């Protein structure tokens, strides 16, 4: 059987969910200062889907125009950054970490290298190889017991009854 080509995903709280029926072969990271500040990270990770191959299966993102023709979508309820798009374009660039299975989407190219962190080259070699469970078992268990993160698959109803006040 071949690998499924559809990719579902959404925000942390699950109020906004999407299905990309297939993806373009352009997964990348961008180090530019606008992408950095938009997601407050060292770099952004994105992959595009043609607009007509993208289905919003629950809710809708709120958009901020970071420049005249660039809209950045996020969940107004939990803040997860979900995409960026050019208003003249026919593609939406989804954030890879929002996918239910981000490991299926490896970035192959880096852009905006004027903003690259000096320590980026040594990311893989940073000290610390403990999992959350190993490093902090009681905290991991407590978080798991009251976790409000949407599961990494589509759900018929969300949130489960009584879960979110």
């Amino acid at each position, binding site marked *: 059987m071949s690998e499924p080509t559809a990719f579902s995903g959404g*925000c*942390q*709280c699950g109020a906004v969910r999407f299905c990309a029926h297939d993806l373009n072969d352009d997964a*990348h*990271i961008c180090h530019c*200062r*606008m992408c*950095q*500040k*938009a*997601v*407050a990270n*060292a770099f952004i990770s994105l992959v595009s889907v043609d607009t007509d191959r993208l289905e919003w299966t629950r809710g809708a993102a709120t958009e*901020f*125009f*970071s*420049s*005249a*023709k660039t809209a*950045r979508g*996020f969940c*107004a*309820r*939990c*803040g*997860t*950054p*979900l995409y960026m798009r050019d208003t003249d374009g026919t593609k939406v660039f989804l*954030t*890879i*970490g*929002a996918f239910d299975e*981000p490991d299926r989407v*490896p*970035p192959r*190219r*880096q*852009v*905006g*290298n*004027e903003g690259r*962190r000096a320590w*980026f*080259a040594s*990311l*893989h070699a*940073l000290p*610390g*190889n*403990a*999992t*959350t469970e190993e490093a902090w078992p009681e*905290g991991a268990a*407590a*978080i798991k*017991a009251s976790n*409000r*993160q*949407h599961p*990494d698959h589509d759900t018929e109803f969300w949130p489960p009854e009584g879960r979110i006040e």
Partner: protein
Amino acid sequence: MSDPDRLDIEMSGGCQCGAVRFHASALMANPHICHCRMCQKATGQLMVAAVGVREEHLVWTRGAPTIFMSSDYAERGFCPHCGTTLSFHFKGARHWAMAMGAFDEPWRIPIHFQIGTEGRHPALADLNGIRDAGTTEAADPAGAERIRLSSHQHPDHDTEFWP
């Protein structure tokens, strides 16, 4: 006397649109990345980069983050206007973990360790080795100029009025 748990780095920062701004008079000596699935999904990214700021060293100088409680313990702050990830705070803790890219001069902040490695994205093993497509200016000068001329991003310094 120097405090081994403290980085003497003073810096402002905030979200992309500038509606929420903060000032840290010192950082904690714990700049790190977290690969855990909750940090990934909260930010839509491969990992989070964060550094602690003690409550006595942190002032929200404009606006305030909106909080989503990703569990009963964790408050995740973001800008309600532009969505920038800003902070992570354990209820009752005396410090906040601030998202590193929100600082105005993030290149001044080192990185010391990684956590949550159960969620490490396989691409992290050689992310530095993927194809280098150059700078924004070199790859797309017209696009870079168009964006620069209409950028709604808050500048990387404090402002008296904004926008």
